[in-house]
């Protein structure tokens, strides 16, 4: 057997002379049509490492979710000495700090939030760091310098929530493959060439660009230094499979050492790495077990990414997620599948290391995906409830690229060519209540929107309500757009993502990803007003406190066009309004129907709604129907969500689907087949996203009572997965009450 990689050269092309990872992938990818039978189990080294990690993870949970915090150091690529789990067993090295699971301070998003997170754990930020911020400004401060009273009112009244104005915005995906394919030296050359092109008469744009490119170059130099501390030379390209994985990981590690954005995705690295792995296998340099070992250890490292978060953050993003989202599968424009053996190897980590919420494994489902892969995905879903699915045919067709990853939970992002600015979300039911209260917020009675006419006494009249609601949404869109402009301007200014941006084309296209929560409540509320008789009950201040609903009305989640079309109409209206406003750097508005776990928080801050939902009750997650109202069976429920138009919500339409195992069929074979068929059916109807949970409710109840028995129990929530036992009690109960689809 040959033992030399040069005997198996890569196919050359445009990628040899210009920055073009895509060209490398297209020329060299080896699609795999087979089944999962080639996969290896866990290696002895990985097993020993994982044992160490599991013990530390238990300690972390026992200590309230945080094992240790470094309160002296401002984290960046080179701030910490190298950290190891058990050096002699690590084939992939690198930790965010010098100690496993120790969290670091990244205060440029907002020093206040860092201070409170540290204080909650009974520690204090060092005086030196505090003092630095007596001189240096951070993102949070910049934003609040520019906010106006309108934005502040919308924010404090929970109309706009989760805005990245006091923490890092995240969502920007570097093309981490670039470091492996080109090495940092070549990347610096490309960036220098870009810099030299920005000349002539200066504009604000050009000045900013010149500064950005130089920050990126400094980041690439720091990557070299960071990797050198681990004995690796990333100034040159990776020369074998282990190095390719290691280089990609270093590039990602650079990003998570510098930034603690809410969601920091990995991109779509698996089939790129497969090219190196297959070459090494062919050259006889590694065995299948070693190939799996490299991937297992890479994924183990990704599971250990930690950020420092305060308790308040947990309300919005429950379960301490990091969204190391990796998109697996999909299709090339030329019709070939992007499924490779390494797509399987990534999923196999859920067996070798047990189920886990991170990395957030996202399968890009296409009608033409190889059958063997579809079946393996379904099997892994049934066994672990750890993966989510997105419609590759839909995204590729609508958005245009066949080389994209998933930013945050569910949203398409072309890798290396475009980025996205995270826009948190607007509370639509709150907006409806403001509309029904003449512009006043329904709980405190403070006027937040002017010139909304008061509605006449008596039952609500649909056209009147629709009129004032749309007027409210128009105002909401205007204020929302202002807030996002300010936030992203300041984030670039005070907390620029130099590590990720060093791995993205200079001056990329940008999406501004707005979001909306509570679409199912809106649909049901407006349907109730239209088809039943809804009379507001008002208190002495004239504010609605409840609604008297007489008669039946169609509910979202039952494949009934009468109500499903209302959800469509409002989504279309809202994005149309958002598109009318200025955006920072000319970014293009998109919208998500997604809540993360904030559906619980939104609910607790929102009064009773005309659909019969009581004050404080949680919203349904994402675009899901409200709990228990989708009573026409699983498929009717899926069909309602399918109708939402992806063109109106290109940042994603999240649907979380929970089934008991038995409901999928009698035998395991049938369960796998039926899940594949269901997903084919759902995605053929142009649906965008599906979280798949295959669990018994009793398992969750038992885990609620005895968390110690379920350290790795994973469940998909809205666009991501969590360790069930790391959710707050309120979130756990909310998950347990969700609709589980069972058979008669």
């Amino acid at each position, binding site marked *: 057997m040959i033992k030399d990689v040069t005997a198996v050269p890569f196919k050359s092309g445009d990628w040899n002379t210009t920055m073009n990872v895509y060209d490398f992938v297209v020329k060299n990818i080896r699609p795999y049509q087979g089944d999962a039978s080639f996969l290896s189990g866990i290696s002895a080294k990985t097993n020993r490492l994982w044992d160490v990690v599991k013990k530390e993870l238990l300690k972390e949970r026992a200590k309230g979710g945080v094992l240790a915090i470094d309160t002296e150091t401002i984290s960046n690529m080179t701030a910490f000495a190298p950290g190891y789990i058990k050096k002699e067993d690590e084939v992939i090295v690198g930790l965010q700090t010098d100690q496993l699971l120790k969290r670091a301070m990244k205060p440029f998003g907002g020093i206040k939030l860092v201070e409170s997170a540290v204080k909650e754990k009974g520690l204090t930020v060092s005086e030196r760091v505090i003092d630095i911020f007596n001189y240096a400004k951070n993102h949070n401060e910049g934003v609040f310098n520019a906010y106006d009273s309108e934005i502040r009112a919308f924010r404090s009244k929970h109309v706009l929530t989760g805005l990245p104005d006091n923490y890092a915005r995240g969502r920007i995906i570097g093309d981490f493959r670039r470091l492996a394919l080109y090495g940092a030296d070549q990347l610096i050359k490309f960036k220098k060439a870009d810099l030299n092109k920005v000349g002539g008469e200066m504009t604000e744009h050009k000045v900013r660009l010149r500064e950005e490119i130089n920050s990126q170059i400094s980041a690439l130099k720091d990557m070299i230094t960071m990797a050198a501390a681990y004995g690796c030379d990333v100034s040159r390209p990776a020369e074998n499979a282990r190095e390719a994985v290691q280089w990609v990981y270093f590039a990602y590690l650079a990003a998570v050492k510098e930034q603690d954005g809410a969601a920091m995705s990995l991109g779509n690295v698996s089939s790129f790495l497969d090219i190196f792995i297959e070459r090494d296998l062919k050259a006889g340099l590694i065995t299948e077990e070693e190939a799996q070992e490299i991937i297992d250890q890479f994924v183990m490292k990704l599971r250990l990414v930690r950020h420092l978060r305060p308790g308040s953050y947990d309300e919005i993003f429950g379960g301490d997620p990091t969204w190391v989202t990796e998109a697996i599968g999909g299709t090339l424009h030329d019709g070939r599948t992007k499924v490779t053996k390494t797509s399987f190897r990534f999923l196999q980590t859920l067996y070798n290391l047990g189920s886990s919420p991170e990395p957030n494994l996202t399968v890009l489902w296409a009608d033409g995906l190889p059958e063997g892969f579809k079946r393996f995905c379904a099997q892994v879903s049934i066994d672990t409830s750890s993966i989510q699915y997105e419609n590759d045919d839909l995204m590729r067709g609508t958005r245009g690229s066949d080389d994209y990853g998933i930013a945050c939970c569910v949203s398409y992002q072309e890798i290396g060519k475009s980025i996205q600015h995270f826009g948190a979300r607007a509370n639509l039911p709150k907006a409806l209540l403001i509309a029904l209260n003449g512009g006043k917020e329904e709980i405190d009675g403070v006027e937040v929107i002017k010139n909304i006419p008061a509605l006449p006494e008596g039952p609500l009249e649909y056209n009147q309500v629709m009129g004032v609601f749309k007027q409210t949404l128009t105002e909401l869109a205007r204020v929302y757009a202002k807030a996002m402009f300010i936030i992203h301007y300041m984030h670039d200014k005070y907390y620029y993502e130099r590590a990720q941006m060093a791995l993205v084309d200079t001056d990329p296209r940008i999406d501004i990803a707005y979001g909306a929560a509570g679409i199912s409540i809106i649909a049901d509320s407006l349907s109730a007003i239209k088809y039943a008789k809804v009379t507001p009950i008002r208190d002495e201040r004239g504010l609605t406190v409840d609604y008297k609903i007489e008669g039946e009305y169609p509910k979202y989640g039952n494949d009934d066009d009468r109500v499903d079309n209302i959800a469509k109409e409002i989504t279309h209206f809202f994005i149309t309004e958002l598109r009318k406003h200025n955006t920072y750097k000319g970014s293009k508005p998109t919208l998500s129907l997604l809540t993360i776990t904030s559906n619980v928080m939104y609910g607790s801050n929102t009064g009773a709604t005309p659909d019969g939902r009581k004050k404080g009750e949680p919203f349904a997650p994402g675009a899901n129907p409200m709990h228990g109202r989708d009573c026409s*069976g699983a498929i009717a429920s899926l069909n309602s969500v399918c109708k939402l138009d992806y063109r109106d919500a290109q940042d994603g339409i999240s649907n979380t689907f929970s089934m008991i195992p038995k409901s999928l069929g009698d035998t395991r074979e049938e369960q796998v087949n039926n899940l594949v*068929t269901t997903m084919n059916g759902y995605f053929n109807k142009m649906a965008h996203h599906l979280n798949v949970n295959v669990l018994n409710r009793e398992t969750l109840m038992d885990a609620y009572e005895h968390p110690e028995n379920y350290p790795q129990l994973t469940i998909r929530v809205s666009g991501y997965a969590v360790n069930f036992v790391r959710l707050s009690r309120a979130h756990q109960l909310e998950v347990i009450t969700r609709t589980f689809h069972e*058979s008669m």
Partner: protein
Amino acid sequence: MLYFPLQDLEAAALNLDDPEHLRIHSLETFGTHDGPGVRMVVFVQGCQFRCVYCQNPDTLDVHGGMLIGIDELVKRADRQRSYFGKDGGVTVSGGEPLLQRNKLTTFFKALHAIGINTCLDSNGRLNDAATHELLEHTDLLLLDVKHINDEWHHKLTGLTNKNTLDLAAHRESTGKRMWLRYVLVPGWTDQPEFLEEWAKHFTRYKTVDRVEIIPFHQLGSHKWDLLKMNYPLKGLEGPTLEGKKAAVHTFNKYFNNVVLK
């Protein structure tokens, strides 16, 4: 209250009156237990058998349930066809579908016209020309043969098994596919000699692709209480693991594809 009296005259009316509508009990959009693949399952209303172990006594009364247009059902099936894949489709179960065989022929023809697979879950009690016509439009018959011994079949259902066995023979003669179903009830249907006899009766059938053993359970018990009917098997335990294994073992001697549900 005891059983509804057997409703022969009403049953005839059920088949003939209101040809555009089916009398149904309920719909399941994500059926995975009644035929292959993912299926829309229509549970029709009304049955002539009075099985002591009936899990759905609320489907017995031919006057119960609700009427739904056949057009409407076809429309619904069409909206779900994307999920059916290559194996799935529509199953009509019950109650006893053959009580509405003429209407079901209309329904199945309409489904076939738009390329949807049809499956019928029946006790095989009615065996006339109209039934035969329906079976022509039935891609897969799920035939419940509740006992091989006629005396026991009477005790179990109130009626003879002769019609059911004849219908099985008819299906075999047409060469069209079927699955046989057998509910395993301790003390009622688990006698080793009768299991053996049942299996021998069908072992040479070429149209039987699968045999399903459905262990008796108490999940339907509350429905009897709700209907204020006296549940003959109240408190009876489902078959033990050994009991199930024994039945599977026996059937495995005679059939290639035995599934314990």
